[in-house]
């Protein structure tokens, strides 16, 4: 008997479904990946376990005090968390900030500028003052990069998707110009990158390469959660996000809110850039713009814009990135394979989302001709 599939909107989103669908999507992605791995002659189970070990380490390693894998995952999770929070607050009010990458780069640039040049310009400054100043510079520069499209959107209705996207490239190329050109380390044997910062401008590390940026990320999550659920401003943001027409009707100045939210969003991304240069690279170089700001968009969506969700998803996505890198090394798989697996997992997870809102119904078609009464 012929039948067809039909999507029907769920009237209520159930909690169980919201839990089962991502789990099912993940399993499907793993099965899909397994077929793929098998086809290139790799053992899927061994590959997956290598990924997990690469991202979290093994109990044996832990008992020996070796937390390298886990800390590397946390290192990657840090900028993803901060940028994920940054874009999610903007997305909350339907402002599509896809410029976190550029805001991060500008934050790193400003913090780097302070670390590179301020010690020479103000030698009388105490060393403890540098990190706060760098954080401030990072936040202000990121915020400026965020406010610009905010102002354009709020007052002349320029599409923010275009402006935030384009500003990314300006920021990235500007930074490249500096470390390839005027700010290049003269003692760097021709390698692109600035000189290393003075050690007192480095963010203290907690364990392995994990630095204070992780603390910033967790504080930022608390801060965003507090704003959204406990303040008048958060109420306005939620109202604008749910229904901008109703928000205007309630007397809310939407333009002003766009600018304020983009200050916060850009500022957070800028802080992530500061944490990267002060916590990891200790110089301005190529490794700053590696796509954290873009991956953050996926983090925000998978987390459904919930601040605590962002923290969890950023960690898991970082594990996927680190674990994926590991299988290139330990399994000798081509680099592309790791990306394919990462892509498959994201594809299935995001695609599965539709099932939390719709259900599939099988519609059986009866013969088209009417049945005669007997």
């Amino acid at each position, binding site marked *: 008997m012929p039948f067809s599939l039909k999507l029907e909107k769920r009237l209520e989103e159930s909690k169980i479904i919201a839990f089962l669908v991502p789990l099912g999507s993940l399993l499907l992605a793993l099965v899909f990946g397994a077929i793929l791995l098998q086809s290139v002659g790799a053992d899927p189970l061994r590959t997956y376990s290598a990924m997990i070990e690469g991202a979290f380490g093994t109990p044996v390693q832990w008992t020996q005090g070796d937390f390298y894998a886990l800390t590397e995952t946390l290192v990657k999770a840090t900028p993803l968390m901060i940028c994920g929070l940054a874009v999610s607050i903007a997305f909350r009010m339907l402002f599509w900030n896809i410029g976190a990458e550029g805001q991060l780069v500008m934050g790193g640039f400003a913090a780097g500028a302070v670390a590179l040049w301020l010690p020479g310009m103000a030698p009388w400054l105490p060393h403890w003052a540098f990190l706060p100043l760098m954080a401030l510079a990072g936040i202000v520069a990121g915020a400026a990069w965020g406010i610009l499209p905010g102002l354009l959107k709020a007052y002349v209705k320029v599409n923010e998707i275009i402006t935030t996207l384009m500003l990314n490239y300006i920021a990235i190329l500007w930074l490249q110009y500096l470390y390839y050109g005027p700010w290049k380390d003269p003692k760097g044997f021709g390698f692109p990158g600035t000189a290393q910062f003075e050690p007192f401008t480095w963010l203290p590390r907690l364990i392995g390469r994990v630095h204070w940026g992780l603390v910033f990320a967790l504080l930022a999550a608390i801060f965003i959660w507090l704003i959204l659920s406990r303040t008048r401003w958060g109420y306005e943001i939620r109202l604008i996000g749910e*229904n901008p027409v*109703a928000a205007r*009707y309630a007397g809310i100045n939407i333009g002003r809110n766009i600018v304020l939210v983009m200050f916060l969003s850009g500022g957070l991304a800028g802080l992530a850039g500061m944490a990267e240069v002060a916590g990891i690279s200790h110089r301005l170089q190529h490794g700053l713009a590696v796509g954290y700001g873009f991956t953050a968009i996926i983090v925000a969506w998978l987390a459904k814009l919930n601040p605590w969700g962002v923290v969890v998803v950023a960690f898991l996505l970082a594990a996927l990135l680190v674990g994926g890198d590991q299988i290139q090394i330990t399994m000798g798989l081509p680099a592309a394979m790791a990306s394919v697996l990462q892509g498959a997992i994201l594809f299935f997870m995001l695609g599965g989302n539709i099932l939390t809102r719709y259900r599939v119904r099988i519609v059986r078609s009866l013969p088209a001709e009417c049945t005669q009464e007997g």
Partner: protein
Amino acid sequence: MDRSDRPPAVEMRGIVKRFPGVLANDHIHFAVHAGEIHALLGENGAGKSTLMNILSGLYRPDAGEIWICPRGQTQPRRVDIRSPRDAINLGIGMVHQHFMLVPTLTVAENVILGLKDPRFLLRMRHVEEKIKQLSRQYHLQVDPSAYIWQLSVGEQQRVEIIKLLYRGAEVLILDEPTAVLTPQEAEELGRTLRRMAEEGKAIIFITHKLDEVIVFSDRVTVLRAGRNIATLDTARTDKAELARLMVGREVLFRVEKPAGVVCTNGEPPVLEVIQVEALNDRGLPALQGVSLEVCSGEIVGIAGVAGNGQRELAEVVTGLRPVTRGRVLVRGQDLTNQPPLRFIEAGVSHIPGDRLGMGLAGNLPVSDNLVMKAYRREPIANGPFLSRRAVLSFAQKLIQAFQIVTPTASVPVRTLSGGNLQKTILAREITASRDFASDHRRVLVAIHPTRGLDVGATEAVHRTLLEQRAQGAAILLISEDLEELLALADRIAVMYEGCIMGVVDATSANIEQLGLMMAGETHMTKETADRL
């Protein structure tokens, strides 16, 4: 007309349709004969639209059968309608409340849109000829080569009807067809329906207006809470009986209204609109020099066919739309082109026409929707913070005072019924104007406040508006329901193409006179014409 010798053109037997939590159709039996106009009457949520959506192929019933007996046959047969295409192939078509026309195409192009024939060569002349013939046959005046965007709402409705006739529909379903028409256009529609019935077509029209049932229909089926309560010959019933069947109790038609205050006791008007001009969303002139005054304790009604500037007027007096000329004064204060917040703080409240589009944020809880205007003030606001406890207790207070039916204050507001959505807005707006205005001289702007509401909820809204009037509020009431305006308003202004055609005293106005003004005839020209 003896119907007993022929089976019904359409018979729906034991139709059941469930939506989560609601039994929309509960074993409904419904039959319509060729040659009759059959009204389907019921309150909102009674299941009328669900039943007709099943017949026209948009929904599938959970149980029940549909039998049809095409013209010229004597044996009915059971059919399975899976899509609107199936329905139209069986000769069943529906004119929806929101028209399904492409504005940038011509009438003829719209009529053949979606048809399989002609497959390759399109001979528009042929199509236009057939449309002209149909429009002559049924007195549906329309120019086949006109573009849809050039047509009035009434003409567009005719195009929708022609679309069905062109497809050979024998059973025509019209969903609240008169909601968008002037009284004159409605009368014309009535004549067209009669003509089609005489030609042997079966006409079903969905309505909740009792007058239309009496005037237009041969028979009437009353639905209540998903069940068929009665099917009657219209000639053997009356409005009172139908209303009782529809609501399940006696209904009073007249609202008791004490005499109003006259605007001449030296007190300046609370709301003044002076020579205001404004543009609509497309940048075209929507208000062209409108002047209006509303005094304390007065309801000024605005009548007019939708789209003649009423919405823009409401937005101008609430600060949502800038004016290009003229002034808006509230309590003597010039608020021209001030932001909406200034209007709110001056004590202007607004009950918008689009409840979920403007008045509420559907996904947010009832409580968040109730504090939409109070959240800036203590005790709900605590410095920059929001006191969650104060939000909930404020919401609880309003839910009780205005008898909003909701499981808790934290369910998404969109899950409430239409009547309770409106009560939520009323509760918030009346409380807000009371809190913001320093005295009784506050402004209430209400747009279609009872549209889509059942009789019970309508009564509640009317009572609330009259209470506010008694307390001294200046109320601007925009409505398409002339009965409502005549019952509630002290004065009625009629808008046509962005102008006020005239202001009449509600006690001396009649529907015919208002209808003429709504169609663009001014009060004056008619009188002068009579005199000449």
